[in-house]
């Protein structure tokens, strides 16, 4: 029997354990002491306390894997999932890292570099600098070329962090200096790059999986434009209101690029879509929170595919095996108040929706105390139906059934979005939520 260490917590740790149990793989769950009541610890074959509150100590996690005789490490998302050093250390200790190679993580982790790299592989980036921008004059030249407003982004940011909007030329000097200094202090590297600010764009991404040897498949597109503070809130698959031919082209281009990279395991290529054009944004070299909606429309268990790919060093599915059907949607339920402030507390009288086409991934149970130290995501509410209208209707009734006591949640915000005509028409863009709130 093989054994896998889950270097993560919360719903994704539970998600990984579920698939492992179905595959007959034993699991080891390292946990921080404040997390001793996490649901997945009940199901893990072994649990190991590794810290008071920390999941970022590479040595502790790898030691936990070694003392418990694991062969594999699944990094989940967040924490060390995109840490190339962690990947290297895992592999140096003869453990399988369920994800890309160290070099691939490092290469895509530098967002300026990723832009340049994927450009050469056939994906046009958002207009802006070719690579990193190291001085103000270059920054000004590029900004003038693509036209204001522009974004100055930290190369080692990503996932919506380390971004600065520059409205016009007069504020560029100060902004550039601040962006460099912030990048240096927050991400440990002052490299920045410049992108045109597409203010009416949609965020659309492609789920890919590579075998590490030049083989790759995609699991379709996801629309993720409903964001608050650049954090996704509602996602759906496939992306609505885009001509099928464009989506097919996008998926083909994405697969072609990851083939050329000899990319290994699961990844996501993120794009902005505006005026009929897709622009590459960045690549995430891990499983994503919203992977469930791709699972729903494809019938593929992505975590299983990740683990099989890592064990067998090949893909167990071809593109022809992947049959898409229906429309899936995910609402992220967060323990937060109306101002997006996290609300830790003890949950009670949880009532999650159920029935046909409903999936709820959550680590909550009655009496669980949500700790204040981690992400506020407490449940992923996922709906699948035959078309988008029905899926939205299903999500609406799921929200009616949903109730949780003891903590504030964003349930009402979610209801407001999915009930709006604009959302129902699929007329979304990344500024949607801010406009709705105003």
């Amino acid at each position, binding site marked *: 029997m093989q054994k896998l260490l889950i270097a993560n917590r919360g719903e994704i740790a539970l998600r990984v354990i579920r698939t492992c149990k179905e595959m007959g793989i034993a699991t080891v769950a390292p946990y921080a002491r404040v997390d001793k009541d996490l649901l997945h610890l009940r199901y893990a074959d072994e649990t*190991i306390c*590794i810290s008071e509150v920390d999941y970022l100590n590479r040595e502790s996690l790898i030691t936990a894997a*070694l003392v418990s005789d694991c062969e594999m490490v699944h990094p989940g998302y967040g924490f060390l999932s995109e840490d190339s050093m962690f990947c290297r250390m895992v592999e140096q200790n003869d453990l399988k890292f369920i994800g890309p190679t160290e070099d691939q993580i490092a290469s895509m982790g530098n967002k300026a570099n990723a832009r340049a790299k994927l450009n050469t592989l056939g994906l046009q980036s958002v207009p802006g600098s070719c690579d990193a921008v190291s001085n103000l004059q270059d920054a000004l030249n590029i900004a003038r070329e693509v036209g204001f407003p522009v974004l100055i982004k930290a190369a080692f940011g990503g996932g919506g962090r380390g971004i600065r909007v520059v409205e016009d030329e007069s504020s560029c000097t100060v902004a550039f200096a601040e962006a460099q200094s912030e990048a240096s202090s927050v991400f440990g590297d002052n490299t920045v790059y410049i992108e045109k600010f597409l203010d009416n764009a949609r965020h659309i991404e492609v789920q890919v999986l590579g075998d590490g040897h030049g083989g790759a498949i995609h699991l379709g597109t996801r629309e993720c434009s409903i964001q608050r503070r650049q954090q996704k809130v509602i996602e759906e698959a496939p992306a609505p209101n885009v001509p099928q031919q464009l989506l097919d082209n996008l998926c083909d281009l994405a697969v072609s690029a990851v083939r050329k990279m000899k990319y290994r395991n699961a990844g996501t290529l993120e794009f902005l879509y505006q005026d009929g054009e897709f622009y590459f944004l960045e690549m995430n070299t891990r499983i994503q929170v919203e992977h469930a909606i791709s699972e729903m429309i494809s019938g593929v268990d992505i975590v299983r595919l990740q683990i099989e790919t890592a064990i067998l060093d090949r893909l167990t599915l071809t593109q022809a095996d992947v049959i898409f059907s229906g429309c899936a949607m995910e609402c992220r339920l967060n323990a937060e108040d109306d101002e997006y402030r996290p609300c830790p507390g003890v949950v009670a009288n949880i009532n999650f929706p159920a029935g046909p086409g409903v999936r709820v991934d959550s680590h909550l149970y009655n009496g669980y105390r949500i700790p204040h130290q981690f992400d506020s995501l407490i449940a992923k509410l996922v709906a699948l139906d035959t078309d988008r209208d029905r899926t939205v209707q299903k999500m609406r009734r799921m929200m009616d059934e949903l109730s949780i006591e003891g903590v504030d949640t964003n349930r009402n915000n979610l209801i407001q979005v999915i009930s709006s005509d604009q959302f129902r028409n699929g007329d979304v863009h990344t500024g949607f939520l801010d406009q709705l709130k105003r």
Partner: protein
Amino acid sequence: MDIRKVKKLINLMEESNLSEIEIKEGEQAVRISRQTTTFVHSTTAVQDPVPAAEPSVEKAARGKIVTAPMVGTYYQAPSPGSPPFVEVGDRVKVGDVLCIIESMKMMNQIKSTYSGVVEAILVENESSVEFDQPMFTII
């Protein structure tokens, strides 16, 4: 006696605000009791379920506990065959090396944070320890 079960029992006890649990399986027996006022480290206190139902927690309540600062493999001595750093009954002072925890091939010397007499050694040589696991009782 499965340590996992004992751990669960203790969790149960905490959640339920119990003061005592005693369990026997064949010749094995564990009795766990606690006083809510002095309860400090009992989640992982009963790591060594001795057949004779020795309530480790009671001992814990009577001494000071040195816990593992990291996950790893516990070694009682600087090298195989060497005498242990400390044995039960030894007098130690703050800063004395009590054991080694190996993590990622690094040997980490664990020093005493208390002065006193080693009342109990709660882990076995070459076994793995988790973060915050009690290793020594010092009175």
